[in-house]
């Protein structure tokens, strides 16, 4: 009897949702945890003292510069374009609304190749200039793209859509009620933006920037190609050159600790502030029509990132692909595209599903634990790809060994490894890395639904699952689409985990591009890169139009 009561109590505390979400978070966080666990393995002090006395300070400085530049860049571009396209009316707004997302489809390393090829000393631009003016090396100054500044620019232009998408949703979901309150207190359009819209969009902007920064931190392809040495270079240095995998993992853990610290500080600085809509007015703010010159400026402001982040690189890529593309283009590419597409789709759907679960569980939980776990789950995104890939390998193979030992015990036949090298393990690796993207997006938007919405539904006899399904999911529709889009595109571009976790004879567009690029056959790699962009464009096109349409309904009503 007492036992039963105890059980009941436990069930009470650990509802299926909480328990389920804890289980999922631990599962997804396994790779990060396994990376972290290296902190407790005795270090190889040689590697540490070598790195810290020679290169690490410089690497850290570079990383901070990179982060500062990218953070500033993505938030400025993302917020500005989001604000312009939601709150103002100018020529081309409808087009930019969805087109501004496009740079997401271009992998940063591809951008880096393309721009280098275009801008470097021997590239067409400089060669052309030299020919035109008869200059020689050293006669003139030309910005070098392969520098820290160049890397910042690359990341900025491919990653700003994170902020753009999240901030846009935030601006749209921010009812006009609060803006009106601001204006009645004497705020002009600029004041409204800086003192109402922006602070209220803070969680979204922070989430978007955090994603961009985590991706920057985890990047190796672009920075190594540019010869910009970052903390991640240090991690790879320890692992590949110095052969010290433990030190590499410890460095990764340090990186994670840094990310956690920043996120925690940011969260703490919010205090008890909330960001939900306190007004019952749910109208989308009516866009302000800009004057002609201002409208022109707005058009240019939106065009520039789109041009540099997508139109120009895409044009160069396509040209390259047409002129000297992959000879193997053809049936094989259909296969590659299908592999990429299916993987991306499955992962995106799963990620969104899990993100809703985890976000919702944290929302309902009265304890901190789920929230903390969600932050840890989110860290997978900040870990350099190869490190997290190995982080994934460890738990997956362990489990695999257990399974095969058990099966052998039962049947006497060794089934070998059933998970490792399977699609499931690959998807698991992706989730470990990209769930963060979905989770950030979903959590940000969940925070904008007042808790009395939950209460109202529950009081009408609707359980928490049904409430999720009937209240949160419909309200979050836009954010869920955004989240799935982000994960989709990220998986399309993902490389390190795909390389090492994939099954035999399984290629994706990204691995194809990588094979050629690492053989310094950039021109040929362009075909695969173009295909990545093209395949990524399809859902992006559909989804971002969906998101835009979802809001337009209300906008148009108010515009009449």
């Amino acid at each position, binding site marked *: 009897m007492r036992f039963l009561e105890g059980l009941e109590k436990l069930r009470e505390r650990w509802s299926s949702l909480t328990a389920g979400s804890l289980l999922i978070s631990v599962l997804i966080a396994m790779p990060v945890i396994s990376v972290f666990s290296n902190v407790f393995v005795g270090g190889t002090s040689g590697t540490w003292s070598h790195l810290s006395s020679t290169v690490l300070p410089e690497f850290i400085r570079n990383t901070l510069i990179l982060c500062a530049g990218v953070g500033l860049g993505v938030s400025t571009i993302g917020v500005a374009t989001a604000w312009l396209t939601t709150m103002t009316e100018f020529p081309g707004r409808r087009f930019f609304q969805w087109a501004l997302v496009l740079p997401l489809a271009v992998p940063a390393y591809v951008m880096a190749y393309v721009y280098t090829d275009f801008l470097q000393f021997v590239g067409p631009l400089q060669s052309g200039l030299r020919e035109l003016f008869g200059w020689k090396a050293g006669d003139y100054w030309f910005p070098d793209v392969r520098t820290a500044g160049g890397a910042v620019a690359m990341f900025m232009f491919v990653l700003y859509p994170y902020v753009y998408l999240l901030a846009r949703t935030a601006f749209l979901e921010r009812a006009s009620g609060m803006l009106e309150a601001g204006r*009645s*207190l004497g705020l002009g359009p600029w004041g409204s933006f800086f003192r109402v819209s922006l602070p209220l969009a803070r969680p979204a902007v922070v989430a978007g920037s955090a994603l961009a920064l985590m991706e920057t931190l985890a990047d190796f392809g672009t920075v190594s190609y540019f010869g910009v040495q970052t903390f991640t270079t240090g991690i790879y240095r320890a692992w590949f050159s110095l052969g010290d995998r433990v030190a590499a993992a410890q460095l990764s853990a340090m990186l994670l600790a840094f990310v956690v610290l920043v996120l925690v500080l940011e969260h703490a600085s919010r205090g*008890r502030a909330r960001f939900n809509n306190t007004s019952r007015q749910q109208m989308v703010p009516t866009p302000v029509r800009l004057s002609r010159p201002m409208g022109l400026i707005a058009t240019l402001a939106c065009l520039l990132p789109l041009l540099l982040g997508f139109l120009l690189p895409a044009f160069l890529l396509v040209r390259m692909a047409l002129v000297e593309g992959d000879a193997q283009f053809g049936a094989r590419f259909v296969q590659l595209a299908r592999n990429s597409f299916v993987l991306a789709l499955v992962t995106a759907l799963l990620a969104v599903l899990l993100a809703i679960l985890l976000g919702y569980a944290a929302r309902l939980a009265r304890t901190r634990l789920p929230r903390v776990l969600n932050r840890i789950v989110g860290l997978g995104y900040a870990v350099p790809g190869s490190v997290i890939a190995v982080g994934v390998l460890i738990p997956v193979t362990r489990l695999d060994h257990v399974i095969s030992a058990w099966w052998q015990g039962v049947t006497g036949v060794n089934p070998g490894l059933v998970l490792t090298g399977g699609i499931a393990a690959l998807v698991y690796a992706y989730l470990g890395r990209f769930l963060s993207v979905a989770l950030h997006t979903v959590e940000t938007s969940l925070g904008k639904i007042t808790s009395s919405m939950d209460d109202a539904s529950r009081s009408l006899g609707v359980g928490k699952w049904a409430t999720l399904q009937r209240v949160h999911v419909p309200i979050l529709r836009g954010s869920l689409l955004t989240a799935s889009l982000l994960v989709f595109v990220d998986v399309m571009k993902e490389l390190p985990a795909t390389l090492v976790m994939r099954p035999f004879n399984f290629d994706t567009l990204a691995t194809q591009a990588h094979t050629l690029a690492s053989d310094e056959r950039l021109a040929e790699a362009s075909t695969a890169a173009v295909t990545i962009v093209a395949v990524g464009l399809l859902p992006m096109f559909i989804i971002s139009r969906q998101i835009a349409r979802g809001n337009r309904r209300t906008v148009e009503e108010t515009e009449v």
Partner: protein
Amino acid sequence: MSHLELAGIDLAYGGHQVVRKLSFRLEQGSIGCLLGPSGCGKTTVLRCIAGFEPVTAGQIRLDGKVVSRSDLHVPPESRRIGMVFQDYALFPHLSVSENIGFGLRHLDTQQRRDRVAELLRVVGLAGQGHKYPHEMSGGQQQRVALARALAPRPSLLLLDEPFSNLDVELRERLSFEVRDIIKATNTTAILVTHDQHEAFAVADEIGIMNEGRIQQWDTPYNLYHRPANRFVADFVGQGVFLQGLVLNDHQVKVELGTLNSAIPVECGIGCGNCDRDCTVSVLLRPDDIVHDDTSALQAEVVHKAFRGADILYTLKLESGSKVLSLVPSHHNHALGERIGIRLDVDHVVTFHEGSDDAVQERPLIGPLRTQ
């Protein structure tokens, strides 16, 4: 020159006409009040004045300058208008103090702090400035919204049901306090409320609205005792209509007896030429019928509503018609009991017998008609 003037404004939400040819004026320093059934357009009128909705016809003038016209729209932030929103619209990311200090950017830190503290005191929330809106009760949030609107000392204050979630005592204290502030600073204000006592107590002039139109713009006393039409008579205060026969200029006969009107009986449009033998509807207020144990006229108690100081009895007359009577609450009679009543009518208000349409047909009593 009036401080605020609305002249024939129209507003439609997506084809649905919500405000129709609405006009009124308010002098500097006076308090107007909009009363009307839920959904009649009160909030919408305030939104037009504040500049959140562009008008489709007519114009709004502030200090003589046009701020809204179909082809002109001064943005809200340039109008120096403070507003308490019906749904408060507090900033969730700012503490209570920061919410109140939001419009005080022009002040230095110390001045701002002082002003915020002062307003916190006025609304009875001293010491709670550090809280966030979601940590406050409904009524507390409402008071924060009020304080926030008052803080920048706007020259025109729009109050959309600012006391609806407050208890009587606080509501009374606050409404007087706000009235004092408004009067002391010569601010103009428009109050939307559903509490008629509050409207009567606070407002200099009241506009009764229905379906987007002002039905009567007048003093509280006139609204109650000289309603311009049947809608106003019905809406303001309580009362019933009994059939009556006009005997002459000053006398109307109803089943309870003959009413003697001090002023000539107006008999409403439609019986313009008739000054006797017309059948009219006579408005009888609860205070027109006085309980008198000694009276021979008796009526049966069919319903009673205990209201603290008094009891509102619904009484059935012989004919089956019902009337209301307000009786001090120690006269506690049981349902079914027959009690003595007496007519005690000063102002006889009559309307043309007929459908409710009569209400709409009657012309408005123009703005600024004082008692």
